C-alpha cells in the first residue's frame, strides 16, 4: 500500500491490523497500539489479551457499560466479549512470558537495527521511572511489532544502530511500523518493506542503519 504521503495514526493502525494473522492472540500496548483494535476486520477471530488478567477483551466501554472492575492495562473501562476469561496477574504474565501470545504491538522511543527496544524510560535524570508490563511483553510474544513515528520532532531517527535510551528488551522486535516506512528486523539486517511519501534513497540517507529493500 505504498502511497505518496506519510501515514496518519489511523492508517498505521490499519496497516498493523492487516498484518495480524486470522485468529491470533494479541496484546496491544497502551497508547497508539490500542488503535489497532478498531481496524481488525469483522470475523478476524483475533483475541485480545490485556495483561491485567483477561482474554477476549472487547472495545472500550460506552457510558452505561462502564464497570470499575473491568479495565484494560491503561485502566480504561472496557467490555467483555463472549468467550472471555479472567485470570490473576501471575497467570496472565505466565501466558506472556511463556510465549503463548502470537503478536504484541508496542510503542517505542527507539528500536535498534538488531531489534533492541527502548520504550519505557527516556533516561532523563529527573524522570520517575515506570516500566509496567513493557519488559514482559517485549520478550514474551512470538512476534513483537512496534508502532512509532520514524523521526522525533527534532528530526532525529528512532530506528538507530544502537539504542541510547535505556533498553526494554534485547533483540526482541520483529517488525517496525512507522508513518513513512515499514521495516522487518531480520538476522540479516533491516529490510524496508514499504515506504510512504519518502523514497528508499532518502530513507537510507536519513537513517544511520544499513538497510536493504524487501
Amino acid at each position: 500500500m505504498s502511497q505518496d504521503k506519510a501515514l496518519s495514526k489511523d492508517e498505521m493502525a490499519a496497516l498493523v491490523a492487516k498484518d495480524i494473522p486470522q485468529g491470533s492472540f494479541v496484546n496491544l500496548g497502551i497508547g497508539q497500539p490500542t488503535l489497532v483494535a478498531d481496524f481488525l476486520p469483522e470475523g478476524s477471530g483475533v483475541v485480545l489479551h490485556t495483561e491485567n488478567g483477561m482474554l477476549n477483551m472487547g472495545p472500550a466501554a460506552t457510558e452505561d457499560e462502564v464497570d470499575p472492575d473491568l479495565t484494560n492495562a491503561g485502566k480504561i473501562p472496557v467490555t467483555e466479549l463472549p468467550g472471555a476469561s479472567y485470570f490473576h496477574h501471575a497467570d496472565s504474565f505466565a501466558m506472556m512470558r511463556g510465549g503463548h501470545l502470537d503478536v504484541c504491538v508496542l510503542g517505542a522511543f527507539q528500536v535498534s537495527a538488531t531489534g533492541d527496544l527502548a520504550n519505557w524510560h527516556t533516561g532523563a535524570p529527573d524522570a520517575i521511572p515506570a516500566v509496567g508490563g513493557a519488559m514482559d511483553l517485549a520478550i514474551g510474544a512470538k512476534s513483537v511489532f512496534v508502532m512509532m513515528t520514524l523521526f522525533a520532532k527534532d528530526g532525529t531517527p528512532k530506528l538507530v544502530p544502537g539504542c541510547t535510551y535505556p533498553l526494554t528488551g534485547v533483540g526482541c522486535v520483529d517488525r517496525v511500523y512507522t508513518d513513512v516506512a515499514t521495516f522487518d528486523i531480520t538476522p540479516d539486517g533491516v529490510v524496508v518493506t514499504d515506504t510512504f511519501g519518502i523514497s528508499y534513497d532518502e530513507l537510507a540517507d536519513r537513517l544511520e542503519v544499513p538497510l536493504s529493500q524487501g
Partner: protein
Amino acid sequence: MTVRICATAAEAVADVADGATVLIGGFGMAGMPVQLIDALIEQGASDLTVVNNNAGNGDAGLAALLAKGRVRKMICSFPRQKDSWVFDGLYREGKVELELVPQGNLAERMRAAGAGIGAFFCPTGVGTPLAEGKETREIDGRTYVLEYPIRGDVALVGAYRADRMGNVVYRKTARNFGPVMATAAATTIVQVAEVVETGELDPEAVVTPSIYVDRIVAV
C-alpha cells in the same frame, strides 16, 4: 487456621506492625482494598514497605497512606501516572524509596514466595537497567536473570465475595494481584462486598481457597 470474620476494617488491620511489608492488591482502582487502606491509615503503622502495581492514584487510598508519610519504600511496576502526584512529590523530595520491578516479575516473585520457590531464572529484563547487578545464566541458548521471592507480612486484598470459611471470588479484572498476594503474605486480609454462607460458592470457581485467607471483612 480458621478465618476470622471481622466486624470492621479497623479490627482487621489492628495488628499491622511498624516496619511491615504490606502487599496491597489492585491495578489502579480495580481491586484496590480502599476500606482496608483507610483503616490502616487510621491505625497508624509506619515505616512500611508497600507492594502494589502502582504508587497511588489521586489523593485517596494508597496515595493517602503515602501522603501521611507512612511508607518508607514502594515496590511497584508503574509509579508514574497522570494522577500520581502524591508519590511523585515524595519521590522527588527523596522521602520515599522506590524498587521498580517489571509487572510480571512483581507477580511471579510473589507467586514464588507463596509457592515455596527459592528463586527462579526469568527472561524478563535481561540486558536492561532493571537487571543490572543481578545474576544471569544462559540456559538452552537463552539468557535469564535470577529473581527472588517477595514476601509480605500482611496482604490487603479487595475481592467480591467470600464464604464464611474464607473462600474468595473476584469480579472481572479486579482479580489481578489479589490471588497472588493472598498466597505470599503471613497474614492475608480480604475485604469483600458480601460474605455468603459456606457452600454458596461454586467449588470449581473458587479463586482463592480458604487456606490463604486469615481475615475477612465485608465493606
